[in-house]
């Protein structure tokens, strides 16, 4: 499910590059668009594309289908469509690059990769420590499994936006992102 279209509304669910995302918006200037933007800064997209009425973060969405959603302009029909598709959208008013949940989790994942790189512990023990020491619902590597490329994309985006070295990615994460 990459795109869902109805009543001149387009909901884009894909995890593309920034350019691919912008291209979809360029191709749909007259539609009301809601777009998955976990790895990017919604503010940048809102400025450039007035037809973008809202954005959401589904990068770490699991079987519970809970997503973080931001409306620049509230669109009840779109919100209803998410619910109809089985999602549980939770509205946020904060516009932040990487939203709230993905941005926090990628930093935890990145640190777990640094620890792995320095051979502090195995992947299994790092997962176990975070779940049973501080009650995390998942271990960092369970969150990142199969999503390393997007974790890296968001970290790179945060670094580009802020120039803060806290967002530089661990080498092992970079390797995992291309493998």
């Amino acid at each position: 499910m990459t795109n869902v279209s109805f009543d001149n509304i387009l909901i884009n669910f894909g995890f593309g590059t920034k350019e691919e995302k912008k291209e979809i918006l360029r191709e749909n200037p007259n539609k009301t668009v809601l777009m998955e933007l976990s790895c990017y800064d919604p503010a940048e997209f809102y400025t450039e594309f007035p037809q973008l009425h809202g954005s959401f973060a589904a990068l770490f969405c699991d079987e519970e289908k809970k997503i973080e959603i931001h409306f620049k302009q509230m669109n009840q029909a779109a919100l209803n469509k998410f619910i109809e598709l089985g999602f549980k959208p939770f509205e946020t008013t904060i516009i932040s690059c990487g939203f709230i949940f993905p941005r926090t989790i990628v930093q935890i994942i990145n640190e777990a990769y640094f620890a792995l790189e320095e051979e502090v512990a195995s992947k299994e023990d790092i997962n176990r420590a975070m779940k049973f020491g501080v009650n995390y619902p998942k271990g960092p590597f369970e969150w990142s499994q199969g999503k390393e490329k997007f974790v890296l994309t968001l970290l790179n985006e945060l670094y580009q936006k802020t120039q803060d070295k806290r967002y530089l990615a661990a080498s092992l994460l970079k390797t995992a992102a291309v493998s």
Partner: protein
Amino acid sequence: MNLQRIVVIGAGTMGSGIAQWFTQQMCFVELVDNSPEQLQNALNSIHASWDKLVEKEKLSSCQVNQMKKLLEVKSLEQVSSNTDLVIEAIIENLEIKKELFHKLDKHFAPHTILSSNTSSFPITLMSEAVSNERKARFVGLHFFNPATLMKLVEVIKGEKTDEKLCNDLYAWFESKDKKPALCKDSAGFIVNRVARNFYGEPLRIVENEDENKVKEVDQILKVVGGFKMGPFELMDLIGIDVNYSVTCSVWEAYKREPRFAPHKLQKQMVDEKRFGRKSKRGFYKYD
């Protein structure tokens, strides 16, 4: 490995929790503290906790009577030297800990494992206080609060710690339904390092103390992220001063690596003595 006789030094929250957990495994436990009053309070509180568990039918009165006999409170001088494992859980002060370990090394039999529940000091550095022979049997055992409920024990291998000893401890804890994690002797070990950005990143998302933003971040991380507590309510519970101090200590240990840098809001709140729940003012108000 068969751990039967345990000594826990320090009858504060962590020490008494650790002593309680080991006793519940039917080990003979001697709980040690400099303060007889602290010891008595710890013993009363452990007994009260067991009595409650009997009321809730989680333990039988027969089991609790047996456990009460297995737990003794003592001064260090009264403790038997023939002990399998010693766990230090005293104040986080390196010099005081090293002085204690020097004494413990002399007091206990050569087979005794010496361990520390420290969350901040390198195990290898602490092991400087003991003989070369003991260094192989010197290990970090980091429990999490409350020790009777939290399943994780970080088993930390110092430079000279015998690898087999760490593996045996790992297996022993696993056999007792704990969830051990083996880790290298590095600052923050696993949890206190990897968890830093659960606080650091939300602080950078809100940037200032906007109460609505704070609530919203907590809410999203609980509802969408599945965390039991949001970062701001957790900082208020832990103590903003305590959390800030751990952040600074990890940041310094990693030579001020930007990933661990404290946020200006943390320092500001500590300077203003807004420590969270305990001072009734933190990210939230507690009146």
